[in-house]
């Protein structure tokens, strides 16, 4: 390499001879005095708040300690958790169906999916839950048979449908609209060349979807879905609208009404919610790791400002970001 270079005087002139190791730079470090000032102010403020809170009677820490592991509370926490899981499972299944419908070539199928999204995203979840609470009043009986003839059987809704399930239906139908958009964004983010390659290999539509497109879409779908699970856990506190009151927040509110002390039970409920969301965040981290196989280490993780959940950013095509804009619409 160096031999032909040495022959050319021009090349020699532009590359000065390299001496020994360059001398390390000894510069005086730039000081950041304000950093320390702000840090101290923040720590002092936080310490003051904690000290004050621990002394303040209104927080009722003795009551907090008494009720945090109360049987009714832990049962309510379980119900909240189950409600979240059921609602999310239904919402994801329905969301995938709606997403596929929206990507369909059939204009009617597409239109119906759009209409669903329009209604369920365009009205507050609280209002929807009140509607579901009135479901058994609006539809007192469900008749099965041929329309306009005598029904074969008639089901009385009030006796058959539990309020818990009405709440789950309300939550999941609302959530499905958001999940549909997330899934659709995920599917659209997969390079069309992938579908083409799988087609060229002789795969059918469903095979290509299951084996090639969906696994790749998962990388885009999982982070916002994790946020949705966390969001759903908190939204369950709205089921009082149905009305259903055996969930975590409903139960703690009922107890506080009996003991005439609202604050400690709010803290109890908050502590449980925080515990669950923290566990979910850890689970999401591992799921994201699993589905970013083959993408190398190019994944930047940063906390989402709204929920603090981890989120994958920076894939070459990450269209969920503009679409995932529900934060402000949801009643938290």
């Amino acid at each position, binding site marked *: 390499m160096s031999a032909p270079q040495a022959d050319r005087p021009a090349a020699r002139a532009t590359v000065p001879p390299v001496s020994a190791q360059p001398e390390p730079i000894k510069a005086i470090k730039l000081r950041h005095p304000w950093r320390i000032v702000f840090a101290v102010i923040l720590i002092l403020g936080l310490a003051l708040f904690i000290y004050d809170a621990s002394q303040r009677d209104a927080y009722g820490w003795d009551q907090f300690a008494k009720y945090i592991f109360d049987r009714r509370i832990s049962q309510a926490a379980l119900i909240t958790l189950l409600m979240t899981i059921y609602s999310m499972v239904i919402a994801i299944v329905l969301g995938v169906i709606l997403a596929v419908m929206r990507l369909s070539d059939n204009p009617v199928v597409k239109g119906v999916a759009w209409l669903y999204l329009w209604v369920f995203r365009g009205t507050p979840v609280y209002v929807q839950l009140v509607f579901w609470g009135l479901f058994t009043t609006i539809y007192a009986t469900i008749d099965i048979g041929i329309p306009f003839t005598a029904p074969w059987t008639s089901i009385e809704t009030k006796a058959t449908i539990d309020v818990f399930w009405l709440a789950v239906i309300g939550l999941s139908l609302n959530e499905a609209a958001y999940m549909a958009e997330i899934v659709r964004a995920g599917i659209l983010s997969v390079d069309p060349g992938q579908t083409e*390659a799988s087609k*060229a290999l*002789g795969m059918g539509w469903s095979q290509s979807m299951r084996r090639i497109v969906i696994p790749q879409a998962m990388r885009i779908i999982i982070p916002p879905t994790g946020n949705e699970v966390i969001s759903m856990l908190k939204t369950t506190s709205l089921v009082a609208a149905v009305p259903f009151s055996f969930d975590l927040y409903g139960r703690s509110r009922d107890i506080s009404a009996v003991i005439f002390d609202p604050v400690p039970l709010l803290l109890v409920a908050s502590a449980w919610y925080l515990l669950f969301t923290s566990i979910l965040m850890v689970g999401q981290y591992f799921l994201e790791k699993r589905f970013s196989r083959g993408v190398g280490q190019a994944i930047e993780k940063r906390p989402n400002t709204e929920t603090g959940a981890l989120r994958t950013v920076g894939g070459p095509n990450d269209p969920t970001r503009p679409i995932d804009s529900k934060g402000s619409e949801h009643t938290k």
Partner: protein
Amino acid sequence: MTDVPMVNAEQVSKNFGSNEVLKGITLEVKRGEVLCLVGPSGSGKSTFLRCINHLERVDAGRLSVDGVLVGYEERDDKLYELKPNVAARQRRDIGMVFQRFNLFPHMTALENIIEAPMKVKGTAKAAAVARGKELLDRVGLAEKADAYPAHLSGGQQQRVAIARALAMDPKLMLFDEPTSALDPELVGDVLEVMKQLAASGMTMIVVTHEMGFAREVADSLVFMDGGVVVESGDPAEVLANPQHQRTKAFLSKVL
């Protein structure tokens, strides 16, 4: 059986809306023949290639592979569009290599190769893996079986893509500008694999700008421009002594 050409195109036309991309392509590819399609971009050569395995629908004319009509079925003098599963079955026997490789990024090199044999053909895993390893060895990437596409160079990815297509034991291989997305120093490895494949008797249609490859490997060369075949014949002859003005103009730029 040998009388039936592998690919037979008669007046094949294709338009996207009002844009006529193919204006009656007529050509024949014999069994074991290597045909290079060259021409300026937008000349319709990639579209023609995609018509052959029905990634695009032919609008007019007739196109058949191994004597079987592509994308349609003829019954009682009427043409019927094929059901998706029948069309998929047709594509199995035609391998395709893309300009942008299109490897499945969530699968390792070996998984990429064994996916279709296992899921489409129902080959047993052990057999598919054995064949996959053999193919990887053939394209010179035996040690990269467990690497994900993101960790392979472009040339390596394209060679895996060729192995993936070969794993379906195709009777025809289509190459859509296989080296156009590669760094110059990686082109050679891919062309080498393609040369070996041609020597093994595979019928190949190659859309390419590699005139050296065309001259050395191809049995015939077709020059397309503006959706029509402008000139075709023996590669050495066409390249050395083009008859048509448009061919001359194009070759003067690329050679």
